[in-house]
């Protein structure tokens, strides 16, 4: 019963992160929304692992953690470069590559 409600919580967290990613234009907040969505995914994995009594859920959590660490370090470097070059963090301003 607890794991079912944990899955519902994971869905709600993922939707909040998705809404934040789609509605905010500041690139730092878009990164934060990505973190929220990754957390929701790992909560779903942990709930599944707890439901079936297997260790696979926590192992997938470890992989998601690794992915998030690598992603955040590279993405924050990109944020720093963008703020140096464009003097803004607005995602709509980075439109030099329009075809």
């Amino acid at each position, binding site marked *: 019963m607890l794991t079912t409600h944990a899955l519902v919580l994971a869905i709600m967290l993922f939707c*909040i992160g998705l809404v934040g990613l789609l509605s905010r234009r500041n690139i*730092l907040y878009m990164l*934060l929304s990505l973190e929220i969505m990754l*957390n929701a995914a790992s909560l779903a994995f942990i709930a599944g692992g707890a439901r079936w009594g297997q260790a696979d859920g926590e192992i997938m*959590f470890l*992989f998601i953690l690794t992915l998030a660490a690598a992603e955040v370090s590279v993405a924050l470097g990109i944020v720093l*470069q963008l703020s140096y070059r464009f003097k803004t963090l607005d995602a709509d301003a980075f439109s030099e590559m329009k075809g």
Partner: protein
Amino acid sequence: MEVLFYIAAVVTLVATVRVITHVHAVHALLYLVVALIALALIFYLLGAQFAAALEIIIYGGAIMVLFIFVVMLLGPLAVEQEKSWLTPGTWVGPSVLALVLLGEVGYLIAAGDHLPIDVMETRRKGISIVLYGPYIIGVELASMLLLPGLIGAYHLGRRVSKEPR
């Protein structure tokens, strides 16, 4: 046991909604730290103690410190801005949510072994045995992911030289 889960879930949802609706980046980061700690409590209640510890140490510690460093690097801090951050109004929301979580943890410690963790089945194998057994290819792939992440962060983190080369 389940009441603790629902309280932590409500704290997580409130903090997460405040993250995406806040204007100041540092306030949003404060709320995100509270949400991560509440999520770690939920992991603990689901029987994943190792994941709960990692969530606090790596997410709440390392990744959030990275975010805060970048926010500090993005703009020089004006004195008025720092003064506005030190007013009580900005600290009340995260503090109340964190106090709720502290109460829950205190209750868990006081209850001791009397509360059964609501896991459906006891886990048969340890994490490390499975991680270095069937999932060894995943460990190798994670190392192949972390090394380009390190190089990419080093390359992107340098200051841009003024004159084009």
